């Protein structure tokens, strides 16, 4: 094989392809991440409908495929085939550009998300800054979409969205800074903005930052968790696209593929902000208790989790297969569902191979944590009414922002508590 492929596979290389400077492997990672995120969006689409439906005493999609499993695909085909309408009087250039900006902003963020110590496209030393910056570009797309539609509802949606995102970015940034501050609490006193560096700092300090200086880390995490829901325009902060008020908000005038790009961008943004939260506070790719439960036995035990998860999914699928109606009309669906279970078993078996098993460890834990966050998103949507705009602003500026500043200062004081104590001590003794 040519050198530009093999040299990254060297056993001694422990950096991401971007850092290593291997364009080939960076490209492979980009494709992997892009494909993976798209797949995750599709899964999320189905899961959201199903979970929400079951929360609301209904079944959700049941027709396309067994238990509606093929519904996202059917939807995708429908959206692609639909006419792409540009309203008359719209600023067509801006109108067509807007969904692309949202999509690019949503996906560029994945450049620095570390799915494992080496499983990232690249690692920047301003990683977290880059993430916040690029994800804040998404609002541009929303504003452009709302303005270019030349219609009132999208315009109001865009106005709401711009104000909302700018406001919550401030609180979000403060929460992030307090986590970054925690990375510098090592003997050398050097913090980092690098995503990988932040996770490694948590490993080095033997704790997830959510538990650091309890409850300070938790409050910072809470601020971020609220702000990130607002940042992604999800319930209860989904005012820019509040369907009962603004029909569909900023994407009212969009149709077909371009509309689906908005959806893709929104779900990609949900996953990316969840990954920031996980990286900063929940130990990133690390499995639970990486320091406490060490040793080959624990390693083995934890490494069985991916396979067990897929066995569990397979069991659920087979159970559903057995409960399918026995009528011949449902035969194809039953077979399909069984085949689905078979695929799960196959994946589980592959995950039992030791090399694969150890290889996917990091990615598995990262994805599992993301899944929890995505479930929370769905849960919020099923539970909360929508905030009103002024209340939203009040929460952002009068609750989260002071709280963020307070947490930041308290974290700084806690970090420097020995120095401060020494200083006071000396003052007293003078």
């Amino acid at each position, binding site marked *: 094989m040519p050198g530009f492929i093999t*040299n990254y596979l060297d056993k001694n290389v*422990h*950096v991401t392809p971007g*850092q*290593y*400077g*291997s364009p080939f492997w960076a490209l492979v990672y980009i494709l992997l991440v892009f494909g993976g995120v798209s797949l995750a969006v599709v899964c999320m689409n189905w899961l959201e409908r199903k979970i929400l439906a079951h929360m609301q005493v209904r079944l959700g999609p049941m027709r396309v495929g067994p238990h509606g499993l093929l519904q996202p695909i059917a939807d995708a085909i429908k959206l692609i085939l639909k006419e792409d309408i540009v309203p008359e009087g719209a*600023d067509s250039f*801006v109108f067509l550009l807007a969904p692309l900006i949202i999509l690019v902003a949503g996906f560029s963020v994945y450049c620095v998300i570390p799915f494992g*110590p080496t499983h990232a496209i690249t*690692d*920047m*030393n*301003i990683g977290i*800054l*880059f993430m*916040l*910056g*690029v994800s*804040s*570009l998404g*609002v*541009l797309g929303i*504003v*452009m979409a*709302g*303005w270019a539609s030349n219609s009132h509802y999208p*315009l109001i949606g*865009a*106005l709401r969205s*711009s*104000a909302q*995102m*700018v406001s919550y*970015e401030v609180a979000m*940034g403060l929460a992030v800074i307090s986590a970054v501050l925690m990375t510098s609490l090592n003997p050398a006193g*050097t913090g*980092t*903005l*690098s995503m*990988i*560096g932040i996770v*490694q700092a948590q490993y080095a300090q033997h704790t997830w930052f959510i538990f650091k200086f309890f409850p300070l880390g938790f409050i910072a995490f809470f601020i971020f968790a609220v702000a990130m829901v607002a940042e992604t325009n999800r319930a209860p902060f989904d005012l820019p696209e509040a369907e009962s008020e603004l029909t569909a908000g900023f994407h009212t005038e969009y149709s077909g593929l371009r509309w689906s790009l908005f959806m893709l961008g929104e779900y990609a943004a949900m996953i990316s902000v969840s990954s920031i939260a996980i990286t900063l506070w929940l130990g990133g790719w690390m499995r639970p208790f990486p320091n406490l439960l060490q040793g080959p036995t624990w390693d083995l035990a934890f490494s069985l989790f991916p396979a067990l998860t897929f066995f569990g999914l397979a069991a659920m699928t087979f159970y559903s297969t057995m409960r399918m109606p026995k009528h011949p009309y449902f035969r194809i669906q039953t077979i399909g569902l069984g085949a689905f279970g078979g695929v799960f078993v196959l994946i589980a078996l592959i995950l039992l191979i030791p090399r694969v098993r150890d290889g996917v460890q990091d990615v598995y834990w990262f994805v599992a944590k993301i899944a929890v966050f995505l479930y929370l998103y769905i849960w919020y949507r099923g539970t909360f009414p929508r905030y009103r705009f002024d209340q939203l602003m009040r929460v952002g500026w009068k609750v989260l922002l002071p709280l963020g500043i307070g947490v930041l200062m308290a974290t700084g004081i806690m970090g420097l508590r020995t120095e401060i104590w020494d200083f006071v001590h000396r003052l007293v003794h003078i």
Partner: protein
Amino acid sequence: MCTGWYTSDMAPVATTFFFYFLSGLAILSGVLVITRKNPVHSALALILTLLSVAGLYLMLYAPFVAGVQIILYVGGIMVLFLFVIMLVNIERSEREKQFNQQWLPGILAACGLGLLFVLIYVKGKALFSQPVITMPETENTQRVGMMLYSNYMFPFEIASLLLLVAIIGAVVMAKKRI
């Protein structure tokens, strides 16, 4: 694990090309900002300018400044610009006469600026006598922090005070209506 940026022998790709590309983009979109009649288009062009300037910062091994540029200017300030622009009547402003018809002051200002550039070019060696320091990129952020809180502490605090005054002024002006 975060060993340096270029562990292999890769050199920066096509530096000159990117420099000219980005600066050309910045100038072009800068021109667009003042020539477009539609204020939203102007603002979008300004965003492009700011983004290409951020790219130039990256080429100068100043990723922190580039990141801050994107977050603050593109993600924050420009969004507010757009916010305000969308609130005012665009059709009306399109019909209005543009303000860039003042040729004489414009030429004078341009000449003054040109003179300044020439002066800097001529006197430059004397002003910046030290050789150019190329900082490793990994330390850029730390260095910026160090600089801000040691050498440039005073200007930094002055700037933040200024911003505070601006905020209070804005609040006062906004409150007056109510």
